[in-house]
Each structure stands twice: as C-alpha cells, then as structure tokens.
C-alpha cells in the first residue's frame, strides 16, 4: 500500500463564532484504507474532509493527495483536482432539482468533457436504481437520492471517496444499504474516508478510526478483525459469579 493522503501541520482558523477549526493536524492515509473520522459536532471532522477534497484551503500547513500538493494548485487547478480525483457524498445529497437522476450523475463527467450516458446508466444499474434514471430528485426516495449522489461521485472514477455522514438523512434500512455499497466500493479497491458521529457504524465498516476533539486528532485506532468465540466478546455471566 502506498500513501494517498498526507496532512502536515494543517491548521484551519475560522472567524469567531464558526466552529470546526483544525489545530495542527498531521496524518497520512494509505491507498485502499477504509478510515472513519469520528468526533462530536464542531470537532473539525467535516473541515478535515473538506480540506482533503480541495473544497476549502487550510490557514497553514500542507495537504497532498496522490502526491499533488493542493496548496500549489490554482483555483481552476483545484476544481480539476476535485472533478477528477475526488468523489464526495454528503448527508443531504445536493442533487440539482431540475435535472433527472441520470443527468445529475453526468454533471462531473460533463465538466470533464466526457459525458457518456451509458456509463451513468451502468452505475445506476450497479446501484440498483436504473429504473428511476429519468425521474427528477423530488420523485425519488431518500435512499434513491443518495444512490444517485454516489453514482455522481463515482462517474469520473475517483481515487478517493469521501463521505460526510452519508446515512444521516436515511432510514435504517437505506442507511445499511448505503454502507454496504461503500463496503463494496472499498472491496473494489477504493480508498474511503467516512465522517460519522456514530461509533457503531464506524467500527462496523472501517478498520481505522481517527478521533477528533477540539480540532485535534486525539486517537488513531487500528481495529482488528479476528474470529472470536462469542464468550470472548460477551459474557452474560460475570467472572465474579463463577466463584
């Protein structure tokens, strides 16, 4: 595995009253990792994701993705970087209401000058929503809208998939399907950074959990997945009781 993301001494200062600042964060993410970023609201986790995505620039420090120093890119260079390298899934889908599902998926490809409707339909098919390709977002369920957003994030075959509370606006079932999709994408070799406040979700899918608190990484845990006997995980009877 090689290094895909490197943050070096990254600080992001906001004007007073806006939370989510980052304070001297340094971390690397390897290619193929599924990493969860956890922390309470205002801890800086979404800020971190936005900076890695090139949606925002740090106050100081450097961010490199796939060897590209984002700080050295012009605004248009940064836009190209986002378009070609990053897939971003948000909590609130952000689909354009006056475009159909398949047209929404094609936006990043059009920006790249490479809009092939067949590819968009193929993605919608893989995500199990090909039959609603011509519907407008208002006529899609939350789960369907999030799938459209994922297809849009994948259309340019990005190196890095960033997901900010992707299940936050979904019911339990749609949320689980959504996460199963991320797992599938991870198995296909994609690197995934998932922002969530839900520890159950994070530990279920990610093998690495970064904990943020007040703009700092306070823990970087790598989780193991050994086969354990049930009694090694839960004991309904306590140790003391056996005495």
């Amino acid at each position: 595995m090689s290094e895909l993301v490197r943050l070096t001494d990254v600080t992001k200062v906001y004007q007073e009253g806006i939370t989510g600042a980052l304070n001297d964060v340094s971390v690397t993410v390897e290619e193929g990792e599924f990493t969860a970023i956890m922390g309470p609201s205002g801890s800086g986790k979404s800020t971190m994701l936005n900076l890695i995505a090139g949606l925002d620039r740090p106050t100081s420090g450097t961010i490199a993705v796939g060897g590209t120093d984002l700080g050295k890119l012009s605004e248009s260079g940064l836009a190209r970087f986002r378009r070609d390298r990053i897939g971003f899934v948000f909590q609130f889908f952000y689909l354009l209401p006056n475009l159909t599902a398949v047209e929404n998926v094609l936006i990043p490809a059009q920006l790249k000058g490479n809009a092939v409707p067949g590819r968009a339909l193929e993605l919608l098919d893989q995500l199990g929503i090909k039959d609603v390709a011509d519907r407008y977002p208002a006529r899609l369920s939350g789960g369907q809208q999030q799938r459209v957003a994922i297809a849009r994030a994948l259309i340019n075959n990005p190196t890095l998939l960033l997901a900010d509370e992707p299940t936050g606006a979904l019911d339990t079932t749609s949320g689980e399907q959504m996460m199963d999709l991320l797992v599938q994408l991870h198995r296909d070799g994609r690197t995934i950074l998932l922002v969530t406040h839900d520890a159950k979700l994070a530990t279920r899918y990610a093998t690495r959990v970064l904990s943020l608190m007040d703009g700092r990484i306070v823990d970087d845990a790598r989780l193991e997945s050994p086969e354990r006997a049930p009694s090694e995980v839960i004991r309904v009877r306590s140790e003391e009781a056996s005495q």
Partner: protein
Amino acid sequence: MDKTDSGVGPCDLDIRIAPIHTLNTYGVWLVERLSLKYGVLGLLKEEPLHGYEVKNRFEAMLGGTWEVNIGQIYTTLQRLERDGLVRPVGSRGDRGKLQYELSPEGKKALNEWLSQPDSGPQQLHEEIYVKLLLATRIANGDLQPMLARQKRAYLQRLRDLNRLEDRARRDGRIDLARLVRGALLHTEADLKWMDELSSERFGAEARRTE
C-alpha cells in the same frame, strides 16, 4: 428481586469503594442464580428434559455467551425440585438420565418472574469504574492516558460486537442478535462516557472541584 442492603450511602470516597465492590459481587452472584433458575424453568416449560439436555439447550440459547457446568444444573434442578417447582418424570434410576418437568407452581413462578421488570441497582461490574476512582486520586486528576486506552478497547469491542451481531443474523438467531445489540448500545454509551470525561468541559469541572 431480593437485593442485598450493602449500606452504600452518601459517605466519602474512602468508605464507598469497598461497599460498592461488595454489592457488585453479591448482586451479580444473586442475578446469576436467579437467571439460571428461571432459565431452567423456561426450558422445562417447552418439554421435559434431563440435566445434560438442560445444560446444552441453555448454552445454545445463550449462543456461547454463558457456559454453565453440569454440577450447577443438577444443583439448580435439585433446589427446584425441593421447592416444588419441578418434578421428576418416570422413575428415579440413573440420575443422569432423570427427566424433569415443570409443576403448576413452577409455571406460575416462571410467569411471575417474566412479568416483573428488572429493577434494583444498576449493575456496574466492570473494573473501569473502580480504576477511574482510584486513578482520580493517584494520578493527580490526569486521566487522559487511561481514558485513551479504555476508549480504544471499547472501539475494538464495538467492532467485535458488530461482527457477532452479523453472525447471529446470518445464523437466523434474531433473539441472540437482539442481545448483542443491547451490548453494542451499552458499549457505545461507555465510549461516549470516555469522550465526555476527556472533553474540555469536564476537565475544567475537575479542576474547579480540586
């Protein structure tokens, strides 16, 4: 449920540590005996069983989260028989093969137990609670290293529980998946507790009370 009166009261920390532990040991022991007793009654309600069948079914029901030795089962059956809640089926020959069935009193006792909510003190029998109290005194209030280590252990436990829940669902054991889900949510709460203790707000509170 008959709980011990441990004498835990609003006294200072030195005196509290010991009684809390005593309460745990005794309370948990009591709960275990009660759960096993009614577990046995519940299984016998389905059909008459002999000792080894009770042991096997009980362990299967708990999905490997509670291993019970055959001696405990026999002791429990003997006590239940003495109290008139179960009775032997057929003749008393080879004790190992003797089957038991539920008596009408046993059915009544089981139904009453099932209809009562769990009440009494919250069971906190993990060592972290006592560790935390001692560390507060010994480490001059700097709990961060302990909290960080504990948090990591909880994260790993959450992962293990997630996998156990998945396995239970795959095996069609919805009842067991529910039990694991309960453990998952408890561990999530433990994790939140660690975060709360680590946060600035609680740090500041701790300094004020010094």
